[in-house]
């Protein structure tokens, strides 16, 4: 019998889909982009082996519709940490590709500067 209105299960339940694992196999940034691979797509056709969450993510990020980790979590109504564990599992199994954001840390790095210039001209075109 529950002792309170808010059962302690609220803590456990979010991570039930990861069988209690809270540590992702890979660190994935909030805004990292996720895209279903060919392997992920064929797994999807066969009904998948990783459960309905895998299936859902594979469908969501298929056909060139890349989604960030944040979008996956929001659309699945899963806490960010849970979505991160699942996506990292799928990436490890080759079902999705994860594209990490371009680093802007090194201020002398031309790749970062080029990215900023592209963002700027993109915003001006909007």
């Amino acid at each position, binding site marked *: 019998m529950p*002792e*309170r209105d*808010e059962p*302690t299960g*609220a*803590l456990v339940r*979010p991570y039930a889909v990861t069988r209690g694992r*809270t540590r992702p196999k890979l660190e994935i*940034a*909030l*805004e*990292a*982009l996720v*895209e279903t691979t060919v392997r992920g797509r064929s797994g999807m056709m066969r009904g998948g082996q990783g459960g309905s969450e895998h299936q859902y993510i594979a469908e969501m990020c298929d056909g060139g519709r*890349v989604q*960030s980790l*944040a*979008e996956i*979590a*929001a*659309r699945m109504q899963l*806490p*960010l*940490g849970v979505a991160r564990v699942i996506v990292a599992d799928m990436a490890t199994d080759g079902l999705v590709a994860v*594209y*990490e*954001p*371009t*680093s*802007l*840390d090194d*201020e*002398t790095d031309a*790749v*970062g*500067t*080029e*990215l*900023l*210039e*592209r*963002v*700027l001209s*993109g*915003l*001006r075109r*909007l």
Partner: protein
Amino acid sequence: MSHRPSAGRVTSAKIVIAGGFGVGKTTLVGSVSEITPLTTEAIMTSAGVGVDDNRQVPGKMTTTVAMDFGRISIDRDLILYLFGTPGQTRFWFMWDELVRGAIGAVVMVDTRRLADCFAAIDFFEHRRLPYLIAINCFDGMQYHNAQDVRDALAISSDVPVVSCDARNRESTKNVLISLVEYVLTMRRTRAVAPA
């Protein structure tokens, strides 16, 4: 034709939108986002607090923090995300993740409640994340001029202070453009004369 990125793959970037509760962060995000702003939640579990302790201190074990965000496709292979900071600044664990790798931050200010943005400014300065101040003009009215706000916030003279109407797409676009221009200028200056 638009040119390909040097790495030839899709990539993303993010801008953080900060400011006090009710200052218009989600409104600003929504005015330029190509999707209806989404909400993502993060759960903080207090390390070092055992399950047994939780029985004695109900509700102290986990904290859920919600963040609103939007998306702008800059190009087929470049997506910009705008993340609103959690309403309460005490949830610093989420701010760490938000600022990591960010282009910069927009600190939204309501001049009637100026102090609401102090914590955000402190945080960005500490993390050396470039930011600008965007005075949100509610009802199209600007109650204080930019110089007054700059003085009141005691910020460096090179930090841009702009005014905006968060509901207006063009206005929000201009805020974001100002921020990226500022970041690029700083970057070029530092690249020429490293500290």
